[in-house]
C-alpha cells in the first residue's frame, strides 16, 4: 500500500466543528414555538423539506422548452400554471401537502426586442418560490426593492446589465397574491442547443430580469448588499 492509496474525491469536506450561538438560537426559537403550540413539529418539518428542495431549475426548463417549442411558449404565456406542471411544479399544491404562505396567481413576462421585464416586490419580498426557489439576499433588501421601481436602468446597470435607451424596462411589482417570472429571449449563438444545454445559461438572475442569458455564462452575478444611494444625489 502506498501513501496515496486512497481516493481524494472521497475525502470528507471540512465542517464547522463548533456550536455557534446562531445555531443554538434557531433551535431555541423552534422548540419554544412548538411547545407553545404556535406551529407543530410536523408543520416545521414539511416546510423545511419544501425549502430544501426548491430551486430555479424548473423555471429554467420552462423557458428552455418555450424557446424550443412555439406551442409550449404560447401555453406558458396563456396558461402559466398548466405549463408549470409540465416542469413538475403544481402552484395549487407546491409542497404536496397544502400551499405555503405564498399562493398566488402566476404570470410569465416575455421579453421582446424592445421590452425588458424585471421583477421586484416593493412591499416585502414576495417571490415565485415554488418555481424559482428561495430569493437571493439582495432581492430581499429595501435597497433593491425601493430603488428598482424608481431607477430601473441604473439599478440594472449595477448588476452589469446595460440596456440601450430604445429598450423599455417594465418593472413588475409582485404581491402576496401575484407572482411573476421573466422569460428572456433566446440569445444568439445558441441555435441547435438541446434543452439541457439551454438550461445551463438560464440562470436565476435571468429569470428575475437582472441579467440576460448568454452562451458561456452559467452563474449568477455576485452582488454585495449595499446601502441605498439616490442616483440623483451622487456627485
Amino acid at each position: 500500500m502506498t501513501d496515496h492509496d486512497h481516493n481524494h474525491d472521497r475525502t470528507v469536506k471540512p465542517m464547522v466543528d463548533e456550536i455557534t450561538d446562531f445555531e443554538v438560537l434557531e433551535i431555541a426559537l423552534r422548540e419554544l414555538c412548538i411547545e407553545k403550540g404556535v406551529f407543530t413539529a410536523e408543520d416545521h418539518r414539511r416546510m423545511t423539506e419544501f425549502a430544501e428542495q426548491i430551486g430555479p431549475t424548473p423555471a429554467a426548463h420552462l423557458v428552455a422548452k418555450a424557446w424550443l417549442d412555439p406551442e409550449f411558449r404560447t401555453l406558458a404565456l396563456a396558461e402559466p400554471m398548466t405549463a408549470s406542471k409540465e416542469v413538475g411544479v403544481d402552484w395549487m399544491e407546491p409542497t404536496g401537502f397544502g400551499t405555503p404562505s405564498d399562493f398566488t396567481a402566476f404570470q410569465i413576462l416575455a421579453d421582446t426586442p424592445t421590452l425588458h421585464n424585471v421583477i421586484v416586490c416593493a412591499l416585502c419580498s414576495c417571490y415565485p418560490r415554488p418555481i424559482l426557489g428561495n430569493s437571493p439576499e439582495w432581492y430581499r433588501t429595501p435597497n433593491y426593492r425601493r430603488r428598482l421601481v424608481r431607477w430601473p436602468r441604473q439599478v440594472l446597470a449595477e448588476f452589469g446589465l446595460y440596456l440601450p435607451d430604445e429598450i423599455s424596462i417594465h418593472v413588475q411589482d409582485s404581491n402576496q397574491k401575484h407572482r411573476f417570472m421573466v422569460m428572456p429571449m433566446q440569445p444568439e449563438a445558441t441555435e441547435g442547443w438541446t434543452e439541457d444545454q439551454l438550461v445551463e445559461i438560464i440562470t436565476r438572475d435571468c429569470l428575475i430580469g437582472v441579467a440576460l442569458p448568454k452562451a458561456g455564462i452559467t452563474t449568477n452575478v455576485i452582488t454585495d448588499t449595499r446601502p441605498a444611494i439616490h442616483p440623483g444625489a451622487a456627485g
Partner: protein
Amino acid sequence: MTERIEALQEIVQRNQVWPRMAAKWGVENPVPPWKTSLDGMCDALDHAACDENIPNFKERRDEEDALSATVYADLPYPENQLVSLAHSLVARGIIDEAELKQRLTAIRERLQA
C-alpha cells in the same frame, strides 16, 4: 420594537457569524446549515399568523427590515434574519426573554454534552 434585548445583544457581541466561522474552519458553504430550518420556521409561522400577536408575513418582514437596518445592522444575512425574528417574537410577548435565555443555555449544554 427597537428596544435592545440583552440575550440577543450577547449573541451579536460574540459574533459567531457564518462568514467568520466558515473561514476559521475552511468550509465553503455560502450559508449556515441552520438556514433551511429557519426558512421552514418562517413558513410555519406565516401559516400560524391568524393567532393573536403572531406576526403575519408582511409584519414579520417589515420588522426584520427595520431591525436589520438598526439594532442588528452589524450582522450579515441570514444571521440578521434569525436574530430579528427572535427579537420580534420576544417584543410581541410570544416568547419571554428569561425563558429564551434559559433555553439557550439548556440547548448549548445538550449539544456539548
